[in-house]
């Protein structure tokens, strides 16, 4: 079941209609969502440094960074 999602303010979000019956969304603004995203990225970055000193980049020519 691949779902349609909303793309808003640079992030994906569930269709609010899926959160109407059993479990409901809470009152939350964009700043709170930004806080969550920022903390997630901090945490994931930290995990890489925890296991190895450096994350190796893909071999040259194998990946073009997105514009």
């Amino acid at each position, binding site marked *: *079941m*691949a*779902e349609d*999602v909303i793309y808003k303010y640079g*992030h*994906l*979000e*569930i269709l609010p209609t*899926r*959160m*109407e*019956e*059993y*479990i409901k969304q809470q009152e939350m603004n964009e700043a709170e969502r930004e806080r969550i*995203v920022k903390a*997630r990225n901090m*945490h*994931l*970055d930290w*995990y*890489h440094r*925890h*296991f*190895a*000193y*450096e*994350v*190796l*980049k*893909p*071999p040259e020519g*194998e*990946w073009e960074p997105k514009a």
Partner: protein
Amino acid sequence: MTTAVTQYGAVTDEVIDELRRLLGEENVLIDLHERAMRAYNCAPAPLHRWQDQTPDVVVLPGSTEDVVGILKLANEKRIPVTPRGGGSGLADGAMPLRRGICVDIKRMNEIFEIDEDNMCATVGTGINMLKLNEVLEPLGKIFPDDLAGYANAMLGGRIGCGGWTLIGARFGHTPDTVISMECVLPDGQVIWVGGGGTKKIRKSSSGYRLKDLFMQHQGTLCIVTRAVIELYPKSEVEFAGYFAFDNWDDAYQALYDVTTRGFGNLSSAMIFDDHKIDFLRRDDEAFIPLGRDVRFVVLFTMYGLKCEVEPAVKEGFRIMKKLGGRYLGPEQGEGDWASRHDRYHLSYHGRTPDGQATLMSWHCEDTAAYHTALPALREQFHEIVGRYMKQYPGVFDDWGIFIYTSNPFKGWGDYLIEIDVGIAELQYNDETWAAWIRMKREIAQAAVDMECSVSICHGSCREGDDDIAMHGEMAHGSFEIMKKIKRMIDPNNIMNPGKYCLDEAYED
């Protein structure tokens, strides 16, 4: 499930008083909610009969001596004892089926020695791996016991279930990285077991290799209180490459080719199957978007010295691309791989048949399979879960299959094939719980029929798994020996009774 034949003693006020005298008042917990929250671990649980698995008392020992005192008392009074580490296991090893005393080992988290010269450390088994590695980090060392619950599991639990790690193809798994252990037997006797008879020697040919007997015992033989563990140099570099494939055959071949190529730094390789990719698209797109053209994903990771890993990664790319694999980029590699160290479950993952988000818990069946069994097992597992989904709409959900390397120090041969099942746990009743057990039995039986193992990491000691494992997989004499050992070491059957069908050891 077998019936207990042992008559157990009650946890009386006198027992509580004695525990308080041994451990101090603050380390003996009797409030109902304190006990109730130690009734379960990570797996979906029969919440409709919560009281039945709630221990009578929880104790928090701080030392080997404390554990000796608890076990002597329990053995004398014939009170069941269930050890509890991080409570993150998925086989209910820490579930107190006969109630009694829950021995929560989290206070035993001391680091006794870091021996850099001999690359090992001596620690209490209540230690968590992430916390330990924060202490080792300034020394440039790491204990590579890297499971999906890396941030919360405890070493005692890892020993109890014979843990598996994500990067075991390079570094080994818990049975390999634990060198020796201090065990407290039910009568209070304290023993050290290792490869031979010493604490820091990894390879010895002296006597029986008793370390392996007290590994993955699920608390049925003893409580492990200390361990000497292996240290590795922290890796200079890591690389995680994710590749998209259009079909199963090419993904399966790519897994074979990359794991049998002979890399020295290959730490893990994985397949995400098409059901898993569809599931991840539900909400993991929240941080790693996957294109619609992605049907299967093969991942390989490498850790080690830059001079070794760099050329090996190039060879890995060549293997993947030859079979049509499309590299998904560093963002996927860095984002998703980092999150695998604490592979989370989002309780919102579930969906009702009409697409509403619902609350589901998660269970993964952790079959150990050899390479040629993987295609058939994948199909059978999806068929089994799909059948129960149809019968119980909204209660069960197929969350797809992961396949991971699982042979220690090498990528080939053995694999973990894990089907993840979403379960509406809050809606459990006797009927749906029984259906879940039937589903588990079918999955376990499919594995045993293919001469595979019921469990690679969690332990096959859960209702629905245990009798298939003990009477099927272990039927060729192994279970008979297990029963004899159990009865010899634990004559009163106080150690985690009800697990591994070992009540049968006490039937005349």
